[in-house]
């Protein structure tokens, strides 16, 4: 590997990215030749995460909870069961836990040890969620973290941070914005951002999507 890196540097003053492209191609070739992996299965995994799984799923869940009190309660009681029953996705991992924001309490999700994140409802996490600044500061300076996202909460709103240190997964149920009475679930879902379901943002205001 060292030899290849040197060679590459000589040729192209290579960046880490192009070195990584070569390195991963070699890895995939070896693992395919050994019969461990099928490139078509790799394609299917990538396609699923690029086109099928993502925060639009969580947004549907939140919009449903905003409009249907019995669903909201079911979601808070057993997130995995409620999301499965909603039928937006066919399978949900165990121990999906929904935590609800109120005027008195704001929830924020982090994984200080690695990158645990509720993939099935939000897709793969963004780079910032997996980065050292977020993982280090969410637990001791959540208000400062919110400031980095341009969010200021009232001083009287307490903050609760959930460190995802096991195989339980958390999704924040953000507050429904005012001025959305009578909106359809679909229209409400357009207000629900990924960050609002991690707790580093708030749902959009009606004027933001009009």
């Amino acid at each position, binding site marked *: 590997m060292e030899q290849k890196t040197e060679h590459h540097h000589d040729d192209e003053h290579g960046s880490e990215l192009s070195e*990584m492209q070569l390195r991963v191609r070699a890895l995939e070739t070896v693992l395919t030749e050994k019969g461990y992996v099928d490139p078509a*299965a790799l394609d299917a*995994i990538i396609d699923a995460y690029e086109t099928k799984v993502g925060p639009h799923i969580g947004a549907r869940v939140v919009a449903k909870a905003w409009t249907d009190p019995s669903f909201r309660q079911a979601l808070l009681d057993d997130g995995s069961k409620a999301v499965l029953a909603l039928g937006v996705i066919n399978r949900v991992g165990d121990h999906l836990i929904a935590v609800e924001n109120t005027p008195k309490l704001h929830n924020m999700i982090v994984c200080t040890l690695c990158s645990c994140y509720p993939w099935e409802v939000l897709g793969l996490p963004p780079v*910032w969620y997996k980065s050292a600044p977020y993982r280090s500061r969410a637990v001791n300076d959540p208000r400062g973290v919110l400031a980095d996202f341009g969010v200021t909460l009232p001083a009287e709103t307490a903050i*609760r941070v959930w460190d995802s240190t096991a195989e339980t997964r958390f999704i924040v149920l953000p507050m429904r914005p005012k001025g959305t009475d009578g909106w359809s679930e679909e229209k409400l879902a357009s207000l629900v951002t990924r960050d609002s379901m991690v707790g580093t943002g708030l749902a959009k205001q009606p004027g933001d999507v009009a």
Partner: protein
Amino acid sequence: MDGVHDMGGMHGFGKIKPEQNEPVFHEEWEARTFALCWAMRYTGVWCIDQGRFARERLPPAVYLASSYYKKWELGLEKQLAELDLAAPDELAAGHALLPGKSLKRKLSAADVPEVITRGSFTRPARQPARFKPGECVRTKNIHPETHTRLPRYARDRVGVIEALRGSHVFPDTVAIGKGEDPQWLYTVVFDGRELWGASAEPSLKVSMEAFEPYLEPA
């Protein structure tokens, strides 16, 4: 292990820089690495905590300087070498030099929709839960050199059991090949000041998911 991966409460990493309209993967190799890690885990050669432990054992300077998927790639190479599944000289050559080992199963494209859900980590309990919601507990002051999910910032701290989450695979043993050893899992909530002292915001609460062996009565 007390590694640089255990970042909660550390200073000096700077501001968070969210990217607008961020793609799922920034480079093709990131996507391939993600999928390779997934497909290799599917073969049954290792579990999720062994993958985490491999990344935690990267040299600290490498861990901090590498992008997220580079850490995954380096961790994958490390695991393949440690289990004699693919040797460094084969990766350098870009071709298999020895036949592959026989593995339990191989992921096919048709299986993917069925397996992109997280597995279940719940296991039958072997004894009743020791703690109940509402009880005060103290986290242990432990510093294992191997994988643990008790972060440094939450060791030797008093918190309250908020919820019992069932009996789960114990990462500390399964990551080092010592079996699933199921343990009760709790949500334990701490006052910000218990963790960070007087400078913490008085209303801050931080919870972690704590396995029973991390806890003792307070």
